């Protein structure tokens, strides 16, 4: 009985939640006449791909590629900087450990907007303003702490006895890590990397402020150009939005187990 009610309520909530996104997809297949029709047309009368063609003709590929470059760069740097501290936090006790852990947690609470001007000036000073590597650097203070929190929880879930066995077998610390811990937690490490990637994929504020050359800009900036103060070009905007959302959506659905366990680790355990 309870279960039936749950299913009914969940179905209702699912419809309400999915509707805005469904509406976005539907609108992207309507001609402008149908988009601006009164009364509203719910299902497109004749499906059109003109907005998708328009997007393709505006060199959407380049923005997509730029997003991939920035995303992969941020992913690699966050992992390289984050993986060893995360391991140390999960295995050793050392001086300033709790202070450093607190700093990791605090950094997650920093509003990105407050660092915008200092980062802008800093990148300008080291001549990395308006470059991909500069943007990647600007993301690191925000992605690395998340990476550390996630990775630490994955490392903690590996029993210490596994490495101890490897150590007894004559492996040194590094080899024990590479041979034992790394393979076991590889899916988790990959998922954390993807999480950092998706963070940059969605990020609007820094990408639109720090990359001013058109040929370097990323997808969110590209989309924001269609949002005018007086007029918004909904058709191409929505076609681009659908393109932009599909990759993260697929990845999120496939990796949800890892993302969720990493995300909630800070809140539920400990």
């Amino acid at each position, binding site marked *: 009985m309870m279960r039936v009610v*749950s299913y009914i309520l969940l179905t209702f909530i699912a419809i309400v*939640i999915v509707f805005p*996104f469904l509406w976005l997809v539907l609108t992207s297949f309507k001609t402008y006449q149908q988009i601006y029709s009164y009364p509203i047309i719910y299902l497109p009368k004749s499906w059109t791909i003109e907005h998708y063609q328009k997007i393709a003709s505006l060199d959407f590929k380049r923005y997509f590629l730029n997003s991939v470059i920035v995303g992969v760069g941020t992913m690699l740097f966050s992992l390289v900087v984050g993986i060893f501290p995360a391991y140390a936090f999960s295995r050793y006790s050392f001086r300033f450990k709790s202070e*450093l852990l607190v700093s990791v947690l605090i950094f997650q609470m920093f509003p990105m907007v407050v660092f915008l001007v*200092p980062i802008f000036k800093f990148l300008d000073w080291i001549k990395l303003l308006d470059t991909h590597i500069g943007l990647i650097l600007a993301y690191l203070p925000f992605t690395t702490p998340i990476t550390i929190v996630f990775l630490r929880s994955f490392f903690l879930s590996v029993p210490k006895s596994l490495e101890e066995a490897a150590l007894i077998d004559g492996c040194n610390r590094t080899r024990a890590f590479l041979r034992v811990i790394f393979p076991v937690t590889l899916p988790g490490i990959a998922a954390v990397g993807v999480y950092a990637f998706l963070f940059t994929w969605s990020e609007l504020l820094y990408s639109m402020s720090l990359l001013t050359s058109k040929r370097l800009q990323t*997808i969110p900036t590209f989309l924001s150009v269609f949002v005018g103060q007086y007029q918004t070009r909904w058709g191409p905007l929505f076609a681009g939005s659908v393109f932009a959302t599909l990759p993260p*959506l697929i990845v999120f659905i496939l990796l949800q187990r890892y993302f969720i366990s990493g995300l909630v680790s800070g809140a539920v355990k400990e």
Partner: protein
Amino acid sequence: MREQKIALRMVMPYVLIIIAFVVLLLISNIVMSFSTTDGNFTFQNYKAIFTDNVFYKSVFNTCIWVLGSVAGQILLGLAVALLLTQIKRGQVFFRSIILILPWATLDIVAGVMWKWMYNDMYGVLNDILVKIGLAKDYIPWLATPKMAMIAVIVANIWKGFCLSGMFFIAGIQTIPRELYEAAEIDGANAYGRFWNVTIPQLKPVLMTTLMFTIIWTINYFPLIYVMTGGGPNYGTETIVTYIYRLSLRFLEYNKAAALSNILFIIVFTIAYLFTKKMAREVAA
């Protein structure tokens, strides 16, 4: 002792790159906030903030924005978590649609999608509301300050409730089954079990979720930027959108830095109060 050395070497990259970078940025903000445009020391930037009507307006708006969004996200997240843990088959399916879809949607896409639904003439929301009789006439959602605030809060609940939902699911799963069984033997119905077992057991998770949602909502920028740009008539201007406007539109870097530092103090006071309360409860 050898362990100490290894561990310290391992955390070095984080300390040298991230912490040093953040400290540099923080200092840069503090210095800027006490500087005139010529680089002389001044309190003028803080004075300018505290005599600025838009500042007070943005603080008030931030409170409304946080109150509405957090209440909505926590309640919806809790409801979805309770429902999802009731069912066995189809859990991943419902979780993917209800929690993962809004999570995976890009911030800017969420913004434009809702902006279009709120359109007064061609927006689907007005059409539905009139059809089912909830509204008599089309509502100009984003044209008046009050309605615009409600509109961005609703959009933010959609975008953000998934996080509290996931926290609560994880929290509910850690509640021992025996507690429910014991309550059932004592004759508690579903309602009683919820109030006497689920809620008290969830309290620690509830507190952390509350803290994270409050702080994330204060910091959340793109939705308002895309949907209203802080308008109309500063009706949805929050502290973060005002900092953005000060720095990139009005190019008042020093005033923006002063406001940034004020925001820091607000955020960390909230975080401190929460963690202190949580620590005290753990100790008790």
